[in-house]
């Protein structure tokens, strides 16, 4: 849902840019608590994986496609603040190098996909995790739930921005129905990819999954005899 230049008026674009900058600044400070020795290499991997996965459009019918946003996936794997930084780097490179998403709309896109989608995805993930049984498979299931929620909510956040500063006079209700409807379907793809990706990392190294910490028992078990 990369917003191009010209959809939102200048004041709204400036407003979202300022808000996005404040959120990124906050994430820079907060991310230090998330980035320990194990999380840092994974954060780099998450950023490049999200970039690659965003290239893979899947058809959702009627000449429309969707692709992973990766906000919930990043939040579950490396924590929400680091996820915002990952998405910000991806969106900036896409706008500056690949002309995908407007330059004046970069703040809007970071706010929608790097902040709203991240925190909705993270919140829904935590909520689902609290409800689901304390088992290992609950983690990817909750991640898929967070991913599913993040897409239509980010789409509706765009609708809200358009209601405030949209350039064309269009019925907002119709926009909400169209954006919400299509992105519910795209959210299913987002949920599936997120479920599979989190499952893979969890199978190899459950201790690397930020969202699983505190959920799975005895993560850091060190037996001195086993080392020698």
């Amino acid at each position, binding site marked *: *849902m990369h917003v*191009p*230049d*010209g*959809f939102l008026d200048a004041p709204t674009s400036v407003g979202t840019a300022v808000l996005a900058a404040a959120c990124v600044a906050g994430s820079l400070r907060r991310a*230090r*608590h998330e*980035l320990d020795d194990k999380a*840092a*290499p*994974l*954060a*780099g*991997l998450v*950023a*490049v*994986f999200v*970039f*690659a996965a965003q*290239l*893979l*459009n899947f058809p959702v019918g009627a*000449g*429309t*496609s*969707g692709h992973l946003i990766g906000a919930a996936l990043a939040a579950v794997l490396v924590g*929400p603040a680091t996820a915002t*930084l990952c998405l910000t*780097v991806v969106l*900036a*490179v*896409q*706008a*500056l*190098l*690949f*002309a*995908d998403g*407007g*330059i004046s709309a970069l703040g809007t896109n970071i706010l929608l996909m790097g902040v709203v989608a991240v925190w909705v995805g993270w919140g829904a993930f*935590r909520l689902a995790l609290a409800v689901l049984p304390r088992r290992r498979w609950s983690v990817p299931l909750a991640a898929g739930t967070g991913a599913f929620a993040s897409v239509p909510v980010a*789409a509706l956040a*765009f609708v809200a921005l358009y209601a405030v500063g*949209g350039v*064309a006079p*269009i019925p907002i209700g*119709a*926009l909400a129905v169209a*954006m919400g409807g*299509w992105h519910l379907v*795209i959210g299913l793809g987002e949920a599936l990819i997120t479920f599979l990706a989190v499952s893979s990392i969890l199978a190899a*190294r*459950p201790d*690397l999954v930020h969202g699983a910490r505190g959920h799975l*028992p*005895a*993560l*850091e*078990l060190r037996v001195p005899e*086993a080392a020698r």
Partner: protein
Amino acid sequence: MSAPTRPGPEPLGGPRRTSTRMVVLVGLLVTLLLAGVVSFYASSHPDGLSPVAAGLGFDTTARESATAGSPLAGYRVADVGDARLSGGLAGIAGVLVVGAVMAGLLLVLRRRPRTAADPTAPSSPSGPSTDPDA
């Protein structure tokens, strides 16, 4: 601390746990394959927002991006005719640039706290965190 001292029935991570380096290497390989090869087979239909904008008639206000003249605009390498090669190279270039920027950012982020805090302190989190984790 109240941490359990005995292994549960299913010790997580197991005795043969994959190293972080291996996880990142395999992940990077998958990522390069997705960006360089699989991306060619992605749907060419416009995604989510564009068809909605066209349907409601507000797509006409979109302006061409200021970077539309970039040699990598539209995920194609300019002057490379073959679509498969052009798209694949652009995808790999994007992965490398995102990786480089992210690596630089992570290096800066991870260096700062150690210079701010006591340099002789161990690299474990220094002091109690003031903001509660969500």
